[in-house]
């Protein structure tokens, strides 16, 4: 009856109103279910107006939102992200953007205004000028409110807010405030997964100046950064896109500058020290490593990883930059490579690259279709049929997409004002979107099994395989065990396994090469966050996986016989073509005994980078701890784990993610 009434209710309410109701519900969730009265009193859903151009509508919404934003007073920094206000829009959201906060810091709204006044497209000009005015009004309003709330810190922050919009900040502290001010606005406008970028690089001059002028001590700097990190991490619930913790707020450390010189510095160390100390999942760190990465930074990074927070992820920048250039990024831009929240490379401050806007291509799906379709007289013929079907799978996921716009980003991204185009409509220098493949290890294992058991040893027929998939191995557990536990497996340094994997990678590249999204070439990667999402309703597969069981995580072994050394060597032998750059992460769970020899762990990781591994992320944990944490969550309130490209509190994860981590920890402990 309740369901019936709900359906009637749904059918009589107009869609716009439904969206507003959904919006208020979301605000309530973001605020730990506060009362309806408070939501209606303090909250604000700002719907879109379909009667006006969506670009102008964005500015209209920005104006309403900026007037309503309430900031918390008495905090270390002002962060004008009000999670009780929600912007609604109908186009696909844009996310995983990394703003060049170095440019944001130097930005001067008066100078931007002058540039805008030279723009010939009147509507563009008016729109962007309005955005500038809204930012000014908001900053001045907050500055005034802070002045009324008279404390020394508030007065200081007020002075920053009045001044910082018109040129580079005058101090390290002010620089942190300016970053937070703009970062909050980007989030407030509904753009998710905003990366912070290379903060050690862009803050260093501010730090040095203050130290040299004697107005900052190392201890103060660390304290400021700590407050900065805690400010970024305080809205995790509201910022999480899917799972709690998946905010995409990454701080990128290390790597080279535009002159090719390695930049890791004292601030790199501070960020690593602070994250080791705080042990919080959000924000997270990514370290760009090269042969000149300082040994102290390696040590601090390993120390941070060994705390178990799953951060920093290591990006082997030489390999990544080289492939980006081959793909079509300007060689003079790739020094400033960042990532889309998790690991997918883009150019900071120049990329509108949406690197995860599609459904993931499920590599194992076409194999099941081929098996179910009939018999083949040789493995080669079956493999050819698989490739044909896999091509269709890849083609089906890449699409044209109508993205949301961002007149706000337009002010800060290269070329947008000069081109007189919104950031999302050709304004940004790059708009190379990316697709992802999930279940590559499962597919390789299934293909190896079919080749061995059906065609080489002829112990089973394809008809047996079909029956096994049909009945989800019910009554065929023996066959399932043969598939899952015997024979060659993905991750083994074995010529046949490597060759088959490279064959599929090369074919993926070939097919992707002629795919386009919104008219632009597309990148592809083999690290998809959807290893559980896509597998939930997926039938059994011939790697011995049962219906609904998770797919393998990124580039990781499914066998306890493959240890960290082997998977790293295997990964270094994978040949990623120039478009296979949308994240290729080796993901491994290390037993905590490795903590005792961190220096040697550094050497293992350095060696993997020397040999060409793309990216690495490591969890350090023991199965026993995870099992205990699942049974007694109250004992582990601060246990942080790496999930796909983010870290989260173990207790916050859905059960299937907890189980998957426990299962993987068990496999790798034996290895």
């Amino acid at each position: 009856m309740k369901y019936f009434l709900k359906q009637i209710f749904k059918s009589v309410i107009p869609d716009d109103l439904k969206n507003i109701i959904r919006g208020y519900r979301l605000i309530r969730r973001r605020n730990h279910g506060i009362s309806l009265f408070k939501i209606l009193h303090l909250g604000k859903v700002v719907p879109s107006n379909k009667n006006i151009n969506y670009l102008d509508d964005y500015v209209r919404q920005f104006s309403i939102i900026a007037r309503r934003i309430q900031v918390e007073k008495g905090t270390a920094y002002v962060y004008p992200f009000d999670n009780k206000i929600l912007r609604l829009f109908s186009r696909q959201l844009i996310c995983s953007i990394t703003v060049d906060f170095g440019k944001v810091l130097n930005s001067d709204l008066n100078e931007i205004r002058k540039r805008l006044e030279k723009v010939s497209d009147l509507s563009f000009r008016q729109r962007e000028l309005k955005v500038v005015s809204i930012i000014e009004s908001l900053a001045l309003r907050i500055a005034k409110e802070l002045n009324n709330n008279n404390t020394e810190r508030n007065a200081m922050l007020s002075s920053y807010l009045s001044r910082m919009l018109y040129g580079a900040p005058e101090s390290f502290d002010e620089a942190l405030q300016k970053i937070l001010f703009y970062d909050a606005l980007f989030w407030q406008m509904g753009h998710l997964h905003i990366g912070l970028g290379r903060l050690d690089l862009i803050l260093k001059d501010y730090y040095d100046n203050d130290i040299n002028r004697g107005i900052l001590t190392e201890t103060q700097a660390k304290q400021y950064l700590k407050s900065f990190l805690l400010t970024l991490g305080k809205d995790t619930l509201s910022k999480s896109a899917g799972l709690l913790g998946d905010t995409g707020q990454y701080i990128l450390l290390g790597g080279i500058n535009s002159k090719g010189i390695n930049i890791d510095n004292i601030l790199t160390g501070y960020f690593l020290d602070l994250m080791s100390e705080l042990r919080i999942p959000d924000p997270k760190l990514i370290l760009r490593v090269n042969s000149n990465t300082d040994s102290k930074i390696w040590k601090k990074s390993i120390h941070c990883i060994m705390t178990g927070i799953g951060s920093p992820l290591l990006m082997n920048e030489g390999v990544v930059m080289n492939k980006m250039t081959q793909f079509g990024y300007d060689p003079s831009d790739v020094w400033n490579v960042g990532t889309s929240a998790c690991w997918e490379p883009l150019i900071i401050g120049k990329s509108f690259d949406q690197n995860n806007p599609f459904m993931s291509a499920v590599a194992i799906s076409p194999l099941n279709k081929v098996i179910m379709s009939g018999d083949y007289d040789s493995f080669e013929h079956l493999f050819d049929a698989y490739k044909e079907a896999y091509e269709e799978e890849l083609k089906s996921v890449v699409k044209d997409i109508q993205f949301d716009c961002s007149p706000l980003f337009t002010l800060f991204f290269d070329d947008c004002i000069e081109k007189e185009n919104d950031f999302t409509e050709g304004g940004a220098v790059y708009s190379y979107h990316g697709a992802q493949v999930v279940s590559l290890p499962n597919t390789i294992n299934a293909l190896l099994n079919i080749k061995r058991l059906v065609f080489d040893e002829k112990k089973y027929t394809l008809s047996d395989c079909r029956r096994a998939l049909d009945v989800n191995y019910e009554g065929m557990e023996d066959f399932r065990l043969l598939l899952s536990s015997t024979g060659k497996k993905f991750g083994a340094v074995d010529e046949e396994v490597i060759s088959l994997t490279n064959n599929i990678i090369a074919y993926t590249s070939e097919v992707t090469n002629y795919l386009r999204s919104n008219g632009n070439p597309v990148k592809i990667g083999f690290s998809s966050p959807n290893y559980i999402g896509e597998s939930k309703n997926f039938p059994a597969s011939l790697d011995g996986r049962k219906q609904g069981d998770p797919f393998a995580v990124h580039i990781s072994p499914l066998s306890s016989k493959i240890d960290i050394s082997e998977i790293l060597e295997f990964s270094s032998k994978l040949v990623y073509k120039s478009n296979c750059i949308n994240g290729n992460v080796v993901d491994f769970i290390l037993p905590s005994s490795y903590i005792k020899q961190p220096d040697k762990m550094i050497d293992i990781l350095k060696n993997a980078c020397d040999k060409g591994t793309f990216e690495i992320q490591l969890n350090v944990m023991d199965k026993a701890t995870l099992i205990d944490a699942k049974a007694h969550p109250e004992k582990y309130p601060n246990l942080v784990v790496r999930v796909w490209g983010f870290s989260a509190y173990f207790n916050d994860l859905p059960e299937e993610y907890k189980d998957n981590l426990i299962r993987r920890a068990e496999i790798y402990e034996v290895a």
Partner: protein
Amino acid sequence: MKLLRVTNIQRGCVFDGPGVRTTVFLKGCSLKCPWCCNPETISCKKEWFVDDSKCLFLKEMHSEICEACERKGGTRYITACPFGVAEPTSLDYSEEELFECILHDENLYRISGGGVTFSGGEPLLQAEELIPVLERLKGRGINIAFETTLVAPPGRLGKVKDFVDLYIVDVKLQPQMLLNNTAYIKSLIKSLGVLRDNNIIFRLVFVDEVWENREKVKEQLLKIGISDIELLLCHNLGKIKYKRLSRDYFDFTCNENNAAFFLSFLSKYGISATILAC
């Protein structure tokens, strides 16, 4: 062609000498330490690990594949079980194969100051067969360590001496082993005399009986001339292997407090001891 009988080649080892190392476990040992954590390395003969947890028949799971199994009255030996119930404890490697395996991490040895460690079992028992591999490794400049008891037939040590950069000598000063064996002590002193210009790390597996016999252990250490020693606390990680080899298992897991007391005790006599963190 002389083959080398190897139970395991473990890459990325961080506890078997300097840097990151590949440890080659060679099969065969003339001692039978009751706490040995690699019991499959004791006999030099071919053996099988039998993991009954993988046996469908014992799990009462029907499978046509199992009809041919000897456990069901068939003719197929358990060693041919397609589900891997029985797995060989060792593989025989040619000199070339073993050399190639070790070379996988050559770059890592260079970066970390590591190399290869031959362990066991007692690696000296296969000294003859190892020489061609050692020659080639030496030619590549790869650091070579031997984890050994030095208990081997005469002449074996001399064969490998020119190739080995580091000896990790496991002294058998437990009462269950050779603590009170005068011939062993004499032989050890003699062997160490042969190695006097070499790098040597001494190790002792610590069981509680070492603490109980601390006076004698200390006396022997001083007699041998050992002033630095690493203690390897006896653990029960090898338990499952005993089950799979159908051998009785005796738990010698030690009391860590006793080990700590033993450290202080030795220090009074000028012997510096550390507990190996692994």
